[in-house]
Structures are given as C-alpha cells and as structure tokens.
C-alpha cells in the first residue's frame, strides 16, 4: 500500500507511545542505573562502572543456565515446527463445525494459565497419581521426573511441545488456507506427487508464517519461567533452571541488584539480537509475499 507522508500521524501514536514509554523506559532506566552501581541501602550507592558486567560474564552458574536455555529453545523449535506443519497439513480443508471444533480443541492448551500448565503436567507425569508417569513405569521404564535429570528434561520439553505446538499448527493452518484452490488443481493436472505439492506450492506459502512462528517460539521459550518452575522447581539440582529463573533467584531471592540488573540487560540484548535477525528476514519475506500476492490476484 502506498503510504502518505504525514507527520501529524504522531498524534494518533501519542497515547500508545506515552503508555508504553511509561511502562518500558522508566523501568529500563532503573535497570541500567542498578547495573552500574553497588547499592547498600536506600541512600548509599557507589558507582562501579562495568564491574557487574564483568562479574556476570564470568559467572559459571549463568554460563550453565545460558547453555541450558539455548539447548532447550533449539530442541523445542526442532520438534514443534515440523510437528506443527504436520498437524496443519492434517487439518480438514473445508469450513464447517468439524473444523471449528478442531481449531478450538487445538487452541485449548494456549489458553490455559502457564502455572496451570505446569500443574497439569506435574500431576499427569507423576508416577503415583498421574496417567503418564504411571504408564511409563508400567511399560518398564524407570521414570521419575523429580529425581532424574534426564526425565525432568524430557518432561519439560514434552510439556512445552504440548503447550505450544498448537500455535505453530494454527499459524501454518492459516497460511495453508490462503493458498488459492487453482494451485492445487494445476498440480493435479500436472500429476504432481504429494511431496512436490508440499515442496513447491505449500511450503513457499508457509515461509512467512513459519518465520513468525519461529520468532514467537524462540522469544517465548527463551523467557520461559512459570511452567518449569511449577513442574520441577528448576530441579533436580539445577537441571531445568533456565535463564529467567536464575535471574529471578538473583534479583528477588538473593537481592543481588547490581549483578541481576547487568544480567537482565545482557539477557535482553541476546533476545533482541536473535529476534532482530528473524525480524529482518521476516520483513524481506513479507515483501516477496506481497509481490507474489499482487501478481497472483
């Protein structure tokens, strides 16, 4: 769409800008302020420069939890994206009550408060009172997510797959619905194989939504806090302690304000950097999509 240059548009932005700035800039400044000072109490604080940053970058505990965080985010992406595409491909194509019902059932996990998601899996995966844990034990696996680090990992990953694959599936589903029927008919005339239809018709159209999906899933999984906190409490040991939990422990548990603030900013920057890479490719694909769209319609 051709947009008109008009700086008066700022007046429309202003209320939103004021509100977000109040909630974003002041707190962010507070964090920056903490990160360069050593605070003893309300009135005594020393300027320490980049000391906290150095300390945080050297901190072994944070290295471990950063590593865990990356492994977690990439493993859930590797499972959720293909599985989401698969589910979207299996969805019925025609509109009707069956499709609506399927959509609602699929979206169900997305609407459950995160702590309840944790609770559901905490119950479901327990060996004594949960169906899943009980079934695993009955099948002869020694499964106990509260004691065994690998089991805890598996449970957290499984929980996230359960919780968020529907988002990927719904995104892909809406991408697939946008493909005109004529494409499929042409493919049929050409006797294209199922794979060829996916590779040359469906996948190119899915690209734009897939980037949104990867972006959202990366961001949200990188900030995950509540679900593992309720499910495993970060344990056993530190096996499932991810970045947000480490940060919360530091800031509220130990009240190490300086290092926690420095860590916050580094954390934010990592998310921002990775998301920026995605965002750039997203807007590029968006433009391609528009060109295709105007050519085809």
């Amino acid at each position: 769409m051709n947009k008109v240059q008009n700086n008066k548009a700022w007046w429309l932005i202003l209320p939103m800008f004021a509100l977000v700035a109040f909630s974003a800039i002041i707190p962010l400044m507070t964090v920056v302020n903490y990160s360069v000072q050593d605070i003893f109490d309300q009135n005594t604080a020393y300027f320490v420069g980049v000391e906290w940053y150095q300390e945080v970058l050297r901190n072994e505990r944070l290295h471990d939890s950063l590593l865990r965080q990356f492994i977690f985010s990439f493993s859930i992406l590797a499972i959720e994206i293909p599985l989401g595409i698969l589910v979207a491909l299996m969805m019925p194509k025609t509109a009707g009550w069956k499709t609506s019902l399927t959509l609602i059932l699929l979206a169900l996990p997305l609407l459950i408060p995160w702590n309840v998601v944790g609770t559901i899996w905490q119950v479901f995966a327990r060996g004594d009172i949960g169906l899943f844990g009980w079934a695993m034990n009955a099948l002869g696996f020694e499964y106990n997510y509260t004691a065994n680090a690998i089991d805890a990992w598996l449970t957290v990953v499984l929980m996230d797959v359960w919780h968020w694959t529907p988002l990927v599936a719904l995104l892909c589903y809406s991408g697939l619905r946008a493909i005109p029927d004529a494409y499929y008919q042409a493919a049929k005339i050409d006797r294209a194989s199922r794979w060829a239809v996916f590779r040359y018709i469906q996948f190119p159209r899915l690209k734009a939504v897939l980037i949104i999906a990867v972006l959202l899933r990366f961001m949200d999984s990188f900030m995950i806090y509540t679900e593992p906190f309720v499910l495993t409490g970060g344990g056993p040991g530190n096996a499932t302690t991810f970045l947000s939990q480490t940060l919360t422990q530091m800031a509220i548990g130990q009240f190490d304000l300086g290092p926690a603030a420095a860590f916050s900013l580094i954390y934010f920057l990592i998310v921002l950097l990775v998301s920026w890479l995605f965002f750039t490719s997203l807007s590029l694909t968006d433009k391609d999509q528009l060109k295709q769209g105007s050519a085809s319609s």
Partner: protein
Amino acid sequence: MIKKRLGLLAYILFVLLPIYWLIIMSFKTNEEILGSLTLWPANFTFDNYITIFTDPSWYMGYVNSITYVALNMVITLLVALPAAYAFSRYKFIGDKHLFFWLLSNRMAPPAVFLLPFFQLYSSVGLFDTHLAVALAHCLFSIPLAVWILEGFMSGVPKEIDETAYIDGYSFGHFFIKIFIPMIRSGIGVTAFFSFMFSWVELLLARTLTSVDAKPISAIMTRTVSASGIDWGLLAAAGVLTIIPGVLVIWFVRNHVAKGFALGRV
C-alpha cells in the same frame, strides 16, 4: 485421507489427555487420587468446587484476575487502534524505528522488568491494584495488538478512507462509524489475544499484587500446605481457569487462525 484423520485424532488425543486427567481429578476425593489410579471417579464429588465457590479468598482470585484482564483489554484496544491506523496509513518521522522499538518490548523477558515494575508502581501508589497489573501487561499486549491490527487494517483499501473524506466525514466520525465496523473481526481477534496474554501470565501479576488484587494463579499455590498438596482442590481451581479461555475462543473461532498469523495471511 484415513491416515490423515487418524493422525489428527492421535494428536488431539495427546492434547486432551492431560486436560482430561485434570478434569476427572477435580471430581475425585483426595483419598481416591492418592489411593488408586482410576480412569473415572469412583465417588463423583463436587466438594472441591463447592469449597472454591463458597470461600471468598478463593473466588475473589477469579474476580481479581478477570478485572485486570478486562482493564488490560480495554486500555490496549483504546490506544492500539489509532496507533495501528497511523502505522497502516501514513509515513512519518521515525515510524520504522518506533515500530521496532514497540516490538522489542514484546521481546523483553518479564523477569527483567520484575523489580523495576515493583518499584515504579509502588512509588506512584499503584501497588496491589488491578490497574498496576493491567498497565504492566499492556507493555506486552500493546505491541502485539498494534501488530495484529496493522495487519488487518492494511487489508482495507485506502480508497474507502479517501471516499469518506470527500463525502465530508470528519476523521473521528469516519473512524468510528465506518472504519471500526470494517475491521471488527480484527478487533475481536486483538481483544482475544490481549485477553489470552493477560490471563495466562503469572510472574508479573503475582509480583505486583499482595492482597487486594491477588490473581487466581497466585492463590492456587495455597493448596500446598504442611500436610501435603490438596490435589483435588488444585485440580478444580485449574479447571475453572480453563473455562474463560474456552468461552472467549468460541466467539472468535472463525478468525482465530488468521489472528494467530497476526492478520498477515
């Protein structure tokens, strides 16, 4: 075709099974939950739900949660609608940077803002009010709302705006009478998303409240006591948090797929 159906069925089963387990657990007594593994409650009981609905310290949690969620929804829509219109129709100084800055807020881990929010809202006297939680959630719901609405608005041809202005409509009149009805599905979806985000979030809601505005998700931790966890009560409270989501999604069921793609498909 049959393979597809079976695959989808298997997946839906995987989605529903944990929820089913929670639901039947809420109808069991604690003795039954801990005593034996049963697929259907042997003694069907409503006791857990009765406890929640008769105890104000329980049901007020739901009232609090719904209050700040509704507040958040209203504020988000009020400020995001004009902003999204500006982004979809005009070029102006700093528009791209502003848009990215807005989205960058969506990328900030809530844990980062925990302590500053606490101090900020305490200092302006908003601590432990519904408004504090609603405002804090706005930081994350507004960027998403602007993004979704901008997608929907870009789908409306600009000729409509121009025709309306030629016909002598003022901006406000046009916006409310003509434009908003045209994107009502987009507004529905946006409202749904701000509801969803605010409803599921716990970390900020718990930190910014203590007594008067305590959300249900924080109250749920009460079921853990010295004598162990009251599983039945916990399950019942969990089931009750799922219901509002199901009700809300019913209203936007036809647009929800598009909404999840941020109005961009």
